[in-house]
């Protein structure tokens, strides 16, 4: 559980033309259960929608999902847009089936970290892993 003093606000969404709604629903449930304030912008969210939602809600982090393989195209430039909007320091996480085809995960991860994401998750990651990472990144919990 997040400590009492600060409830983190997360913007959650599925980027691009992606309509995978099941995982989005589960993530909303899991992050909410874990004590976060979740701003869920749902599926088919544009980069602008992520940035606007983060600015409007003064969010601590942006969580991007992409399940359909176009993640590489869709995510490019998101960090730059955040900088333009004056929230260049916001933590950004990305996860899912990020690329077309079976590719070496380390390569894929490096590509997304270079794009400006703080962490990237492969297919099959359980929500708890991201929850633990976020708590750790905000100094709220040691990872066991």
């Amino acid at each position, binding site marked *: 559980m997040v400590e009492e003093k600060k409830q983190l606000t997360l913007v959650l969404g599925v980027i691009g033309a992606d309509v995978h709604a099941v995982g989005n629903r589960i993530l909303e449930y899991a992050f909410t259960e874990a004590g976060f304030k979740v701003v869920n912008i749902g599926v088919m969210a544009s980069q602008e929608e992520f940035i606007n939602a983060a600015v409007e809600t003064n969010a601590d982090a942006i969580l991007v999902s992409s399940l359909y393989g*176009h993640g590489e*195209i869709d995510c490019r430039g998101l960090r730059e847009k955040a900088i333009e909007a004056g929230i260049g320091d916001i933590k950004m996480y990305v996860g899912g089936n990020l690329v077309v085809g079976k590719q070496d995960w380390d390569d894929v991860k490096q590509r997304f970290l270079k794009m400006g994401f703080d962490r990237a998750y492969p297919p099959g990651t359980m929500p708890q892993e991201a929850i633990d990472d976020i708590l750790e990144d905000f100094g709220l919990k040691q990872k066991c």
Partner: protein
Amino acid sequence: MQLANKKLDWDQFLQIRQEVINSWPTGQEADLADGVAYQAQLPAKLRFAEKLEQAKQEGITLAQPRAGVALVHEHIELLRYLVDEGGADLLPTTIDSYTRQNRYNEAQAGIEESRTVGRSMLNGFPAVNHGLAACRQVVEAMSVPVQVRHGTPDARLLAEITLAGGFTAYEGGGISYNIPYAKDVPLERSIRDWQYVDRLVGYYEEQGISINREPFGPLTGTLVPPSISHSVAIVEALLAAEQGVRSITVGYGQCGNLIQDVAAIRSLEELAEEYLNRFGYQDVVLTTVFHQWMGGFPQDESKAFGVISWGAATAALAKATKVIVKTPHEAMGVPTKEANAAGIRATKQVLNMLKDQTMPETKELAAEVELIKAETRSILDRLLEFGEGDVAVGAVRAFQAGIIDVPFAPSRYNAGKILPARDYRGAVRLLDFGNLPFSEEIKDVHREKIGQRGKLEGRDPSFQMVIDDIYAIGKGMLVGKPR
């Protein structure tokens, strides 16, 4: 113009058609007379509807993969590989997600980048951008029929180009390609746009060219109770038939419980026939498609083969006309062509081993068939009441009222109130009925069966049970167990 389930007036169709083919440069390439002439000279081996009808008569199940990449040459190579190395009986051309949203500029960028980096940056074949000649190049390079598979709420331009381009089957429908595939598209609009597609197919049919149409069965692919997907499939079959479509394949996505799955395919075929007859569409050739497991897959390829093979076995025992095949890379996203062919080979091995076997009638199977039929009739009959006898109007109003409700759908035009969960045998039941017009008798069956599971697991049915079920297959189970 009011929405109604009525055959589109031809002049009106032609008027809309001008807008459609002018919406992107390649649209101009599609010419009706030329399309019909091209289709007419295609050899019999490339005709989807004929191959399905023959399989139905022989009582066998055909295997069809999903596949599509950004560039024409690579796409042809991929499809050929799936026939030569996989033994695919039917081919797909899966369309990329940008095209599905009519974002042809982004699709174009994806094509260019694919050329530059030397690998497909798109998750499918952008048929609209490639245009008519490329479609014909694909079709002519094949030895088996090719279907367009996508997820496009407004698929009118795609239909014009691909049908004139020689594809002989077209997946989708005004509900099944909207509710699970879009967030903001009004049902009224997508149904209307799909009436256009069906009218186009009906036109080809009038010219003696039979194009197969397939409402997308699995919807969101996650814990969808059979009666929900059956209702959608039957509504779309009725809408298609009214526009003159004569070859219709109704579909269903595997839930995982053998009895429920076999009952689903049987009841689907019987119910669709029943409603088509009731509305006077007597001359439709109806076939069925069974989708292998559409939910989360195990990461491990051997385990994935287990899931794939079990789907193939169920399809064969249910005697579906075709089965849509998954791949051992499913958990990793778009598969390599090798993995895709491997999935087909495993599937065909099982289909062949079981082709002389059927699931015999049992008390449990008969009860499940009756339950699905009673549920589907409840939904459809209330839908027709809401539409004052018109199935198009009824569909829009039924979704508004939550009379039909698809679990986990992204669309805001879907009520999103029902909550499915598995019972202790792994069959998909309902935990929350939302506004579904089920009798108390039906509801009691669901409550009892989920209740039994709760008892066995020592917990009250809740959303956590649903989450556990969604993750279950990835963890090697069907019914999600408490952690």
